[in-house]
C-alpha cells in the first residue's frame, strides 16, 4: 500500500511582479510505499522544496492530486517535517520543542528516548539559541519522529553543515528510522547522501521538475559506508540532469 501518491500536473508561481509565472513542476508522478525511504534527487531550483510543501499541505495552489494515507483507518494521516532550517520555537527548551508536537494520547517516553538517541539528554533543558546548529538540527530530527508520523518529509536537512557533522546526522537518522520505522520522503541534491539513505531514488529533471528516472538502490545497507562501492554504483547508474539553455537545449557550462 502506498503511503503517498503524488500526481502534480502543474505547479506555477509568480517569480516577480510583471514577470510571467515560472513553472516549478510539470507532470510529476510517483508513489512511495509504506515504510519505504525514498530520496528525491535533483539539481538546485528543480522544485524539490515546492514538492514537499505541496505534500505537507502548505501549498495548495497547484493542479493535480496528492494523497497521503494514514496508517490506521478512520484517522487523519500524521506528517513529520524536517525543514532546511530547524524552525524550533526559541522560547521553548529542546525537550519542550520535541514534546509540543505530540498528541495528548501519545507516549511521553518517546521524547526521552529520542533525546537520548540524538545525544541531547544533557541539553534537554537548553534553549535553541544556546545550542549549536548541529544540535538544533538534531532537535528538529527528534521532533519529527516524536509525532510518530505516517509520512516523514525531509527537506535537505543536513545542508550547510560540515561533512563530518552531516555524515554523523545521516547515520543518526538511519538509526532512528530503524528503531521507529516510518515512510520517508527525503529531498536532496547530494547523490552520495541519497545513495547512503534511500531504498529508492527518484531523480527530477531541472526546472520544471518532473520525474526523469527512478533507481532502486540495490547496495546492501551495511556496504553503503564504503565510498568506493558508492562511487562505483553512482557512476554506473546516476547522472544528475544539468540545467540547459532553453534556446538550443545544450547544457549550460
Amino acid at each position, binding site marked *: 500500500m502506498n503511503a503517498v501518491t503524488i500526481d502534480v500536473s502543474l505547479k506555477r508561481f509568480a517569480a516577480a511582479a510583471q514577470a510571467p509565472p515560472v513553472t516549478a513542476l510539470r507532470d510529476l508522478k510517483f508513489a512511495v510505499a509504506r515504510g519505504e525511504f525514498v530520496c528525491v534527487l535533483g539539481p538546485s531550483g528543480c522544485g524539490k522544496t515546492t514538492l514537499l510543501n505541496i505534500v505537507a499541505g502548505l501549498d495548495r495552489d497547484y493542479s493535480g492530486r496528492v494523497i497521503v494515507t494514514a496508517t490506521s483507518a478512520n484517522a487523519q494521516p500524521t506528517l513529520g*517535517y524536517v525543514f532546511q532550517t530547524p*524552525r524550533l*520555537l526559541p*522560547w*521553548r527548551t529542546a525537550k519542550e520543542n520535541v514534546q*509540543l*508536537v505530540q498528541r495528548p494520547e501519545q507516549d511521553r517516553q518517546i521524547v526521552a528516548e529520542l533525546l537520548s538517541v540524538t545525544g541531547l539528554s544533557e541539553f534537554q533543558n537548553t534553549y535553541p*539559541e544556546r545550542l549549536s546548529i548541529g544540535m538544533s538540527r538534531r532537535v528538529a530530527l527528534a521532533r519529527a519522529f516524536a*509525532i510518530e508520523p505516517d509520512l516523514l518529509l525531509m527537506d535537505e536537512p543536513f545542508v550547510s553543515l560540515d561533512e563530518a557533522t552531516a555524515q554523523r546526522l545521516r547515520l543518526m537518522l538511519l538509526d532512528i528510522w530503524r528503531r521507529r520505522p516510518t515512510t520517508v520522503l527525503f529531498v536532496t541534491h547530494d547523490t552520495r547522501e541519497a545513495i547512503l539513505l534511500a531504498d529508492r531514488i527518484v531523480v527530477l529533471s531541472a526546472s520544471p521538475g518532473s520525474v526523469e528516472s527512478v533507481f532502486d538502490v540495490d547496495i546492501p545497507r551495511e556496504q553503503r559506508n564504503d565510498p568506493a562501492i558508492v562511487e562505483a554504483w553512482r557512476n554506473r547508474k546516476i547522472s544528475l540532469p544539468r540545467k540547459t539553455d532553453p534556446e538550443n537545449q545544450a547544457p549550460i557550462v
Partner: protein
Amino acid sequence: MSSSGLRALGIRIASFASLILLWQIGTLILGPRKLPSPATVAYVLSADIADGSLPFHLAITLLRVAASFVTAMAIGTFLGIAMGRMPRFDRFFDSWLIVALTFPALVAAILCYLWFGFGEAAAIIAVAVNKIPNVAVTMREGARALSRDLAEMATVFRFGRLKTLRHVILPALAPFLIAAARSGLALIWKIVLVVELLGRSNGMGFQINLFFSFFDVASILAYTIAFVVVIQLIEFGILRPLDRHTVRWRR
C-alpha cells in the same frame, strides 16, 4: 553581595544623597515657601499618609490608571495585530493612526468631558484614547515580525488555533506587549493627572490642583513623590521582572 554589587549600591546611595543635598541647597537659595526642604516635605507626606487622605486619592488615581491601561492595551493590541496581519486593514487605518498619534492629550480630555459629561467613563475614555495609537503601533510591528516559518511548522504539526496562539503567536508578541505596557504606564499616569485636574473631584490630579490654588508647594511635592514611588514600584516590581521572564530564552 559581590563587590561589584556593593559598588553599584554605593553609587546609587551617593546619587540619591546628592539629589537630597541639591534640593536642600535649592531651599536655601529660593526660600522654604517656594521650595520647602526635604524634611518639611517628608513631614507633610507622613502626615497625609497618617490621616488617610493621600492613600485615598492615590487609590482613586491608581484605579483610573488601571482602567485606562487595560482598555488601551486591549483595544490597541487588537488593532495593532489586525493591522500587522491584514494589509488592507492596515492601509485603511494607517492615516487614522497618524492623526490619532498627533492628537493633543489635553484636547482629547476636554472633548471627552464635553461629549460624555464629567463622569468616570469620560475620564477613562480620554486617557485610553491617548494611549491606544501608541499600543497599536508597537503591536503592529510585533505582528509584522511574526515568523512565517514557525507558523508553517505549527500548521504541519497540526497545532490547531489555540495551541498556535499559546505557543507560537503570544510568546513572539510578548516582548512587544511588555514594551507597550511599560511605555503605556509611563504615559497614562501623566495623562490621568491632567484629566483629574480638569474634571474630577478626587484623585491626585484634583488634589494637586487644589494645593496649587493655596500655593502649598510642600503638599504638591509630597503627593508627587508618593505617586512616583508607586509607579516605580510597579515598574521594578512587576514590569521589569515580567520583561526578563519573557526574554529569558535569549542568549
